[in-house]
């Protein structure tokens, strides 16, 4: 009998990886998550604390997947403190995913912070599909750069380059990931731009891509209660990020006036970014 993705499964953390002072990756064995498509997410239960939506991180161990968490709120901080041997509840994977087309020869990935997680899963697929790839990793400072080596290793079979940007210029190019993108799109043609990260950054990436007439796919994030289309907490205009996303293309993004501007609080009130 197929496993009902909706039912919560308990998994034991098999490995905990420190990515930076405030980001950790937890690896666990789970067949459904190991087969997740890039951009899909899990609802992760930190028992008796919280349940939070988390993008499925790649693990190169057969039958395993992972989640990467940045210490931030109550749930993510409690999760950050877990260690190998602890258990978590998961359900999913949910949502749609980044799409690749057979004709793609050269793509651009632009990510910031833990928004890089779905892009790393995508990078592993791109590596198998033999598509050339430029990946821009944005961080605030040198200390917060994550996944640079891992991205290189995931793209080992294809021609690729990794560009790092830092807001304070302490490493790589000074500026945001979208500033890095401006530099590369001027003299190189891409079949598609994939992005995930802070929404104001994605909004800039979307604007640059639109100006250059580049197709774009963006994985969005919103507060969620259910993850399955019932609570409505994750709405962005008339779309639900959990069910219609997390990945949206040019057509939808251009119609979302809330994209990059407005998100909703836990009580459903609209708040402005920035």
């Amino acid at each position, binding site marked *: 009998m197929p496993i009902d993705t909706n*039912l919560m499964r308990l998994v034991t953390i098999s490995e905990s990886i420190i990515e930076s002072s405030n980001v950790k990756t937890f690896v666990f064995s789970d067949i459904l998550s190991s087969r997740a498509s890039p951009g899909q997410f899990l609802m992760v239960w930190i028992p008796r604390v919280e349940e939070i939506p988390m993008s499925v991180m790649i693990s190169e161990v057969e039958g395993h997947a992972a989640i990467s968490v940045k210490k931030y709120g109550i*749930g993510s901080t409690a999760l950050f403190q877990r260690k190998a041997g602890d258990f978590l*509840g998961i359900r999913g994977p949910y949502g749609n995913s980044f799409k690749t087309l057979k004709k793609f020869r050269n793509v651009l990935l632009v990510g910031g912070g833990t928004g890089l997680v779905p892009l790393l899963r995508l990078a592993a697929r791109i590596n198998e599909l033999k598509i050339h790839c430029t990946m821009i990793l944005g961080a605030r400072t040198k200390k917060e750069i994550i996944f640079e080596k891992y991205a290189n290793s995931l793209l080992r079979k294809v021609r690729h380059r990794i560009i790092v940007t830092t807001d304070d210029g302490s490493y790589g190019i000074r500026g945001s990931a979208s500033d890095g993108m401006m530099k590369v799109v001027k003299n190189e043609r891409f079949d598609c731009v994939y992005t995930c990260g802070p929404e104001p950054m994605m909004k800039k990436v979307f604007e640059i891509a639109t100006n250059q007439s580049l197709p774009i796919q963006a994985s969005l994030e919103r507060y969620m*209660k259910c993850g399955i*289309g019932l609570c*409505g907490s994750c709405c962005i205009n008339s779309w639900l990020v959990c069910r219609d996303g997390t990945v949206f293309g040019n057509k939808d993004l251009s119609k979302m006036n809330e994209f990059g501007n407005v998100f909703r609080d836990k*009580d459903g009130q609209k708040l402005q970014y920035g």
Partner: protein
Amino acid sequence: MLASGIIGISQDIFESLYSHDIGAVVTKSISVRPMKGYPNPSVVPLGNETYLNAVGLSNPGVLAFSREISKNKEVPIIVSLVGSSEKDFPKMISFLDSLNIIGYEINLSCPHVSKMGMEVGDDPEIVCSMVKTIKRHTRRPISVKVGIGQIDVVEMAKTATDSGADIITAINTVRAMKIDSQSMMPVLSNRIGGLSGKAIKPIGIRCVYEISKKLEVPVIGCGGIFSWEDVVEYLLAGASAVQFGSVLASCNHGLFTKINKELKNYLDRKGFKNIGEVIGLAHRY
């Protein structure tokens, strides 16, 4: 129509649903002040399209919500209201009554928030005075949403109707719980919540049947409706309209267009001219 509590905080979503042939939408229950609700897990899928939730009546509060729907033109919106005291309702109605809405549904049956919903709705005296107060402050029709509490659902519906309620909505979720056998912990952060989805349909059918048998009031059926057959079952039990909730976890908004079409086919096959003819037919037996 869309049941209260489901995706009901965004005017854009109301418009999308309306463009997909939904008859009306009931909003999330709105309170005087914004409510964050309970921490997650607040929704637990139990399999077989049955769900447990203790969202905790999260809503942006009447001020923000009245702004949200202030530009509504054509969507038939029923605002669900929840309050902890009688005084809350006139205040909320003063924000909402001038907007383009078609009525109110009073949530007296949410099974998992203290001092609100069922905790209020289980006391006939409070229900009576709340409904009377609300009726004094609005000319719009009000429906009282009842559920499975300590007091029999038919008694509660009678109290509400005697106090002036125009419509009864039955039923709300049913108080329930999930404990995980491996971790040995309750899963909902609130431990106890309300059951919805396929498992509660027979309870909803029974309630609608008994209420409509005893009272003259129009009943809106709600609970575990997933298909046109479920709609017909509620109509036969005596419902004049029905609400959809949990089904939206497995279907997109195109569901409503499809169900409307299938209902028309059913009426044609059975030789009925309009759907009203089906209402309450099961009472003949």
